[in-house]
């Protein structure tokens, strides 16, 4: 598996002394260019798993390789772009300055930065908003800025933690399409945490179903819907079959209904 971006073996995570087991014995391989969703009820450890992959949380046991390196090395090499549920934009920076934040940290020059920021603004269709401040934008636009920021330095892996969870259904569907377009255009690898079955099926190449207490992977469902996904995809009988399959997998675990 030379072309796997993430390779996790036997990952466990326990919080506190003899406390809650958030993750137990997780094995996960993510190939280059894949779009993998982690889905499960609250408390199943999907966000924790994402943070373990991103080296923001240290696993209690197990081994994790990202691009063939330790997760820690990968973080120092800036292999991760992260998008949280909240956009986490800096209020004191304009849209353009927010997007260029990681570029500043990587040490790009001013000219290079502004060139890339312009590209990114076009990618997320926010050209013309570079001088706005975050609080002058709608929630959906803020989240697009956050995506542009995560992609600005072309990280090997895009980690998204319920990025559209706080948005209304309409905005969410529009941003789903936009994310798919960006994923196709940039060829990035995405790990996407969600608790929406429809969203997971629509976006992913694979859906990883997790269950709580202790957090573990109970099934992995490949999504064989044709690419690119469009409005028709949402009406495809196969789409409904897969949605049902994921739902049954979730409920089989006795997760919260």
């Amino acid at each position, binding site marked *: 598996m030379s072309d796997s971006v993430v390779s996790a073996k036997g990952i466990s995570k326990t919080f506190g002394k003899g406390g809650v087991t958030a993750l137990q014995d997780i094995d996960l391989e993510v190939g280059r260019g894949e779009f993998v969703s982690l889905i499960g009820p609250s408390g199943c450890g999907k966000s924790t798993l994402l943070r373990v992959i991103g080296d*923001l949380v240290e696993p209690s046991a197990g081994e994790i390789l990202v691009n063939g390196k330790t997760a820690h090395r990968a973080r120092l090499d800036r292999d991760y772009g*992260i998008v949280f549920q909240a956009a986490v934009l800096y209020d004191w920076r304009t849209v353009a300055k927010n997007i260029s934040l990681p570029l500043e*940290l990587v040490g790009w020059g001013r000219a290079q930065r502004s060139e890339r920021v312009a590209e990114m603004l076009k990618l997320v269709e926010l050209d013309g908003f570079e001088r706005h401040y975050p609080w002058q934008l709608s929630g959906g636009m803020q989240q697009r800025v956050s995506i542009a920021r995560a992609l600005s330095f072309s990280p090997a892996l895009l980690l998204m933690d319920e990025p559209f969870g706080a948005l209304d259904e309409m905005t969410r569907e529009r941003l789903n399409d936009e994310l798919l377009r960006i994923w196709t255009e940039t060829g990035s690898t995405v790990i996407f945490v969600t608790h929406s079955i429809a969203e997971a099926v629509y976006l992913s190449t694979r859906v990883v179903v997790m269950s709580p207490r202790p957090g573990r992977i109970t099934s992995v469902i490949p999504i064989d819907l044709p690419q690119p996904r469009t409005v028709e995809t949402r009406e495809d009988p196969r789409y409904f079959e897969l949605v049902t399959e994921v739902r049954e997998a979730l409920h089989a675990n006795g997760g919260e209904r």
Partner: protein
Amino acid sequence: MLLAVLARIRSLAARAAVLFLVLAGLWALWEGYRKLWESTGWTRPFPVDSTTMPHLHDIVGALFDPLREGEPLLARYMLDAALFTAKEAAVGFAIGATIGFLLGALIARFGVLQRGVMPYVVASQTIPILAIAPIVVVGLGNVSIAGWTPTDWMRVAVIAAYLTFFPVTVNTVRGLRSADPAAVELMESYAASEWSVFWKLRVPAALPYLFSAFKVAATASVVGAVIGELPSSIQSGLGGWIINFNQYYVLEPENLWAVNLVAAALGISFFLVVVLVEKLVVHRPPEQLV
């Protein structure tokens, strides 16, 4: 364009009207109180006459009278004194704000210092400034570093700094710790150095807190400068004039009130400078700005 200009003029006019109304209201309050107490002969809490409460027009008028025949107007002396005190206060503010920020940054970074240092920082502010001023101002006058002794105003600036640093320290600690945990996590995911996290996240996040402190500190630095002038009777500043006019209060009460007005105006202008800088430097959603 024209509409925008008109709107701007209207809002300025509205502000001027409010200012005028407030000043008129204060005037009416003062003069009305006087009139009522004088006509009824009430003596509580204190008897009212031209000594205890001079007419406002007499107080303002005193500024435009020469102190003695053939000498410049009082306003002229007041201007010089205000500039002298302003220099002490501004330098004191700069020193105090710098020390306050550095101390706050150290405390925010090293939690141990919170318990180790903070009690002394608080204690320093519980000692009346009037008790410390002579020790510092007179004491520093005897200090000589390679033949150099701090001049009068420099020693007073130390008192202004003493009053300035405390609010800045307290708010720096809070402000630096106010950064959104998710934003800190984001910086971690970029493998940002602690230095970058400090300058690109923690300090900008702390700015609204810092400016709240600067507003308190700006006015406190003027008070500190005035008080600092008293113990070694430095004559060139507002403090010197306050002592002077105090002694002649029974004869010319308007003069003391006039200095007080000038001192207040100086404090207000310090405050306004901070507000102006804040407007230029701090970008936040309007509802988060005070």
